[in-house]
């Protein structure tokens, strides 16, 4: 058995070596969950946030679980670790929770800042961080109220451009987050797409953020 594995590996090495001048790259799946780091900016693609599994009374529903994310370690945290300070943001449908108040044991907080991501150099001195207080959230729910706008005519949800989520992490440090898209592959379906497409493609977050690990408010 072990020999087989070794020989396969060896073959693979030979194969790779043979093709060195014409590199084979398997095309990256644009729909896969992916975290990439470029300087201070971390990009997250296709974080599934309780994606649709069926219809109940005609309304699309997920299983009701959150996707927990740690901005400090750039990782998707297991649901079993939800009762800890090891996550900063939790996503389910259009709801985003922070790790504080009624949502978690951490020292999190958040508010929505209007402006472009690059222009937010530091957390403004007069900022007021809110915490989750169910049914209210620090990142306000509702179309046009927090981070997204929902178009009832097209049944499409889009993050409002020029909205930065200023986050206090589960351990009291700061990050700025820009939600880029709510659909799989980071592309909103066309207004004329079928309801089936709009339903199955939604609840996949693409976002970018900068985390300040030294505890200061400067990004």
């Amino acid at each position, binding site marked *: 058995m072990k020999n087989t594995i070794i020989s396969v590996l060896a073959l693979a090495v030979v194969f790779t070596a043979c093709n060195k001048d014409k590199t084979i790259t398997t095309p990256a799946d644009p729909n896969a969950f992916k975290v990439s780091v470029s300087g201070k900016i971390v990009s997250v693609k296709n974080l599934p946030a309780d994606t649709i599994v069926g*219809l109940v009374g005609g309304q699309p529903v997920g299983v009701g679980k959150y996707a927990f994310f740690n901005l400090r370690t750039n990782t998707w945290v297991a649901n079993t670790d939800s009762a800890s300070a090891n996550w900063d943001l939790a996503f389910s449908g259009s709801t985003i929770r922070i790790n504080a108040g009624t949502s978690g044991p951490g020292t999190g907080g958040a508010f929505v800042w*209007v402006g*472009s*991501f*690059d222009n937010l150099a530091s957390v403004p001195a007069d900022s007021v961080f809110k915490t989750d207080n169910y*049914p209210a959230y620090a990142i306000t729910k509702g179309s*046009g109220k927090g981070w*997204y*706008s929902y*178009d*009832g*005519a*097209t049944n*499409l*949800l*889009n*993050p*409002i*451009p*020029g*909205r930065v989520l200023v986050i206090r992490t589960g351990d009291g440090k700061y990050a700025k987050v*820009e939600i*880029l*898209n709510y659909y799989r592959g*980071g592309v*909103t379906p*066309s*207004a*004329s797409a*079928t*309801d*089936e497409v709009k339903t199955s493609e939604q609840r996949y977050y*693409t976002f*970018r953020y900068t985390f300040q690990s030294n505890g200061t408010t400067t990004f």
Partner: protein
Amino acid sequence: MKPTVVLFIAAFLTASSVLAQEKRIYRPEDTTRAKELNEVVVTATRTERKLANVAVPVRVIDQRTIQQAGSLRLRDILQEQAGLYMTNGFGTGVQMQGLNPDYTLIMVDGEPLVGRTAGVLDLNRVAVGNIRKIEIVKGPSSSLYGSEAMAGVINIITDNSFKKRLNTGFRYGFGNPDEGWALPGSRKSFDNIDFSLQGSTTIHKLGIQFFSDANYLDGVSFRPFSTERVPQPIWRLTNQLQLNYRISQRTKAGFSIRHAYDHIKQEFAVSNNGAVTNSYGREANKDLNSNGVLVHQFSDKIKTTLRLYATAYNGSQVLKFKEIPDSVYDDEFRQHFYRAEDQTDISWEKATLTLGAGYAIDQVNSTRYDDVNSRKQNTIGFGFTQYEWSPAEKLTVIAGIRYDDNKLFAAAVSPKLALRYTVSKKLSLRASAGRGFKAPDFRQLYLNFTNNAAGGYSVFGSIDAVKIIDELNRLGQIAEIKEDYSKLKQLAPEYSTGLNAGGTYTPVEQLSINVNLFRNDIENLIDAREVAVRSNGTQIFSYINVKNAYTEGAELELQWQWNKYFRVNGGYQFLYTADKADLKRIRSKSVFTRDENGYSRLLERREYSGLPNRSRHMLNLKLCYDDQSSFATFRAIYRGKWVVSDADGNGVYNSHDEFASGFVLFNLSAGRQFKNGIRLQAGMDNVLNYRDINNLPNLPGRMFWLGAQFKLIP
């Protein structure tokens, strides 16, 4: 292109060129243009005036144009006019100078049609078989007509000749858009059948005329997972009787009654993720209009016209879902409108004074309000005056004002001033400024609607909103009162201030160029806003006068009589629109969009697209051959792209949003009048079979049609 289409076009062109070889002597006074300038119009000033002397932009569509295009419904002919944009949703409405269908008054013989759904008066309700002409006045005309005449007025003038005749017409159309879906019961082709009968005679002093029209249209199923046809099979019947009695040399009485009936059969299956729902039901719309007119000429100088009008519109819809027991969608809307008015015109050598006053009652019963049995009523008292003065031969000045006093909402004052100056035989200039208004409709005043299917939000009309919310608050069912709650008060009419300036240039007799620049500033637009939130989180909306917008642009019209037989008509409209609140937000740098990476950046002013569902460019072109016995037309309609949804989510329509593609429609028709009174016609609408299921659901695919008309009494 399919062989049938090619054959058809070839036959059409051959026929045109053969017919063209028949030579006749050409006289410039025969030109349609010359005839048109001598045409008398009534809508612009409420008095009979030659089109050439009118100070406001007016367009006339004559009977021959309507017949040659093979138009059956009002929509068919209006879509071929420059600057008129056909809207989709609640039937087909007309957008004029960039204003929504709500703001164009549509009249038959000077009396308004009622029964709008969400502000739209469906243009398919009106058969055009007995229309003598359509007059389109652009720019605010509330100084003469009151509410709704904000963007302009479309007045449909029925045939008023009472000579002895009896005609019948038949037309059959067939369309096959070459598409169908797998669901059993889907339809791939559609039919359009029309039958009409028209007759008139004069017995002693009594003129009698009648018109009957029956029209059947069904559509194709062009959506996947649904057998629903667009349109659903619809029957339309129209009957009209007109009487005219010459009491004396100076006194004339007229009476007209018109009845229109639409019946739509709803029966379709929709498949949603494999689960099929069968819907069935019907929709019926009845329209009854009756008006009496008494005209008395006191002397050469003084004439008075008394008009009495009563109209009833009754729309009802019942829809059931087979798989869901006890699910019935039942909608009923009944509107009654009564009006009495008198208009007196006093003419001097160089001036005409018009004085008018009247009283109107508007009533609605609907399931959309609290109770179908509770009648909502508004009463309107109004007076208007207009003074038309020609101080010099070349100059005409018109000043007018109207006051409308409403029981349910604030009064409206609508002034207008118009000038016309003849620079030379070749050039005339006109300018006008006026104010138009639209009264809040009953929906905005009385709607009582809770959408249980979509989350349970409610919309309350402005009259009861405060009362309902205060009561809910007392019961502890209100979680939050929004800022806009404080703005809830008696609704005011929506206003527009319109400026129109332009002129007509006729370098040679055969060519005429018409230019009009316009700007409409619209204030007080009524919009639904969130005013409160219930304890269970559902939102409550009501109507407030909040929005301000403008539309501006240019219209260009060209008419060229190439020779005795060939004529070219062209029209173009350029349009800019804006919501003033959007502009303010953009200027204050609080609106963003996304760059090619999806990252936010500021939206620039030049990226702003204005109000949705408006095309910046619209073009119409018509080539026509006409030798009085044979004719052929080729018509092209171009409509530029228009924004349909806020794809970048910033709440402002801009160049990064989703647009519907611009398109071109080609229509053809040809016909011949035979000596024995038979007229044969054939045509093809939408030659290229252009369709856009999502953005133009009302546009059918390519249709071939054949028509015949017979004179039953020679």
